[in-house]
């Protein structure tokens, strides 16, 4: 999952970026509205974290500009003033949720996870496709109730595919949303990771949770289990 962080206070921005990276997100960050808007328009962002009080172009303007350009990824606003006027204006400009500073970073992570799964059409924090379950809060995967050990990148790929369950996801898309910049797109590392995931999730070749669509990409094929 690729997160865009636009925050002018350097200590908070660095804290956010390092924590998000540690939690397996690919992160782009900007210290002002103009750079942030550029990143939001040019990169395949999955979710944005935008501070309202930015120097230059304000957070409100960045959000409005992103929405006007047709960018639909969910956006969480950070505001220092807890006034409802700000929250309502931010949400009206196109944001999806707000968080008042100061906040616990765990709270921010939970909100981002909620926004991401909402964007994928999931309403619970546990993505359930019988017999597979992925808990976005604890980042754990169980197969028929039995925990499956996954590496960080394996988890990221599975989470992305499950959030977009039913859709065909290309290799390029997977690469862009899972790795930070400067990743060699021609390498076959995605294929290797998919192969390892398949062995872990479907040792008997009975389930076939991840289909390969030749020339197109991959598709998570298990049906979503209604909650």
């Amino acid at each position, binding site marked *: 999952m690729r997160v865009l962080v636009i925050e002018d206070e350097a200590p908070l921005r660095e804290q956010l970026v390092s924590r998000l990276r540690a939690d397996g997100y690919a992160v782009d960050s900007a210290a002002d509205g103009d750079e942030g808007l550029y990143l939001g328009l040019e990169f395949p962002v999955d979710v944005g974290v935008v501070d309202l009080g930015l120097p230059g172009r304000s957070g409100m303007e960045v959000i409005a500009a992103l929405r006007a350009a047709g960018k639909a990824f969910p956006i969480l606003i950070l505001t220092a003033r*807890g*006034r*409802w*006027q700000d*929250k*309502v204006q931010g949400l*009206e400009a196109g944001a999806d*949720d707000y968080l008042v500073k100061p906040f616990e970073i765990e709270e921010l992570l939970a909100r981002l996870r909620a926004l991401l799964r*909402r964007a994928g059409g999931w*309403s619970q924090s546990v993505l359930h496709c019988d017999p597979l379950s992925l808990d976005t809060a604890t980042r754990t995967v169980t197969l028929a109730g039995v925990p499956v050990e996954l590496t960080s990148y394996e988890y990221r790929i599975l989470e992305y595919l499950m959030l977009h369950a039913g859709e065909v996801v290309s290799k390029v898309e997977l690469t862009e949303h899972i790795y930070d910049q400067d990743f060699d797109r021609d390498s076959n590392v995605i294929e290797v990771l998919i192969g390892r995931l398949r062995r872990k999730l479907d040792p008997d070749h009975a389930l076939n949770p991840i289909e390969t669509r030749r020339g197109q990409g991959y598709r998570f094929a298990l049906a979503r289990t209604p909650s």
Partner: protein
Amino acid sequence: MRSLQARLVLAASLVLTVFLGVGGFALDRSFHDSAKTSVRQRLQAHVYALLAAADVDSRGMLHMPASLSDERLQRPGSGLYAQVEGAGGAVLWRSASELGKQIPAAGPLVPGRWAFARLPAPQGGGLFMLSFGVAWDTGADGGQRYTFTVAEDVAAYQAQVDRFRRSLVIWLGAAAGLLLLVQGSILRWSLAPLRAVERELQAVEAGAQSRLEGAYPRELKGLTGHLNALLESERRQLARYRDALADLAHSLKTPLAVLRGALDPRRREQLESVVREQADRMNTIVDYQLQRAATSGRTALMAPVNVASVIERVVNSLHKVYRDRDVQAELRVADDILFHGDEDDLMELAGNLADNAFKWCRHRVRVSAHREGQSLLLAVEDDGPGIPAGQRDRVLDRGGRADAGVSGHGIGLAVVADIVTAYGGTLRIETGELGGARVCAAFPGV
């Protein structure tokens, strides 16, 4: 044009100039006309006198007496002249006054016809000339025709007109001066209350008085009333900031003391949890006091706010935030309900109440606003667990101790209570029709 007085004086002077100018011109014109008419009447009388004096003998010869009734006709250069012309245009008789100055011939005139003209003279001045055509019945061959002409120098007429103009200018000027003077004093008198307001405002600024005390005319009552309201709300705002600052400082002392105590080496193992706990507490305090200081309360100069549109915006925003919850929000707010206060305050109030309702409801939230006499009633309810009767007072109790905020409904309700108090209203918590908490704010005369 910075001064009202200068504007009014200028406008009045312009109007006065135009009116007096037009009036003077009309008077001058009508005097001219009547003077001319009187000249003509005088000349006509002279013509009749000449006709009476003239005699034509049986051979058709005109005879004029040697002496005429008006001695001016005898005196050369007197300014009054007369002559008689025959049918062919030849001058048959000239008055003695024409000696050395011949007046032009009038030309033959049809009998019974008058001709009046003003002839300009090359050396200035000029003549008024009146001619009358006459047919003299001599009994012989159908009679003789004559033209009798009397002329008068313009000088006398001109002198009369000049005299009139001089006095006209003097009197009109005097009237204009007097009017301006009177108007100036009326202005000074009318604008005196404005100068009084200025003096009083200076006194307020200097701290000598706290409001405008003077008795002002009706037209200024609105202005001074609003100024007093503004001064009052500024003062209240200042007091609120001061109180909030003092409250903030005092309420931060406790967590600071706890933090300092946590540095005790014997309690090292608890340091992390104490820091976390006290940071939370300080954050709550800062939030609460900030909100409190930002509440503006009622002022006299607020544009009324449409309640329905504010509530709609808040509820739409909350739907976005609580998208997972599938909340059914019902708005019972008529379009014409207005809140005479600060929009920020209303949004803060509605936001906090509706946020709590969305948070605690199972599926349904209802926001309603209606008028009851002079009061505005705003109620938010949900179908959640509600607030037990025993805890309602504690939830609303602020007492300046924000750090004792009740968990769950958070500082939201305390903020709402503060806003309602700032508007002189009351806040009530009860069990609503939906089964959960119903929070009702009543604003008197807002």
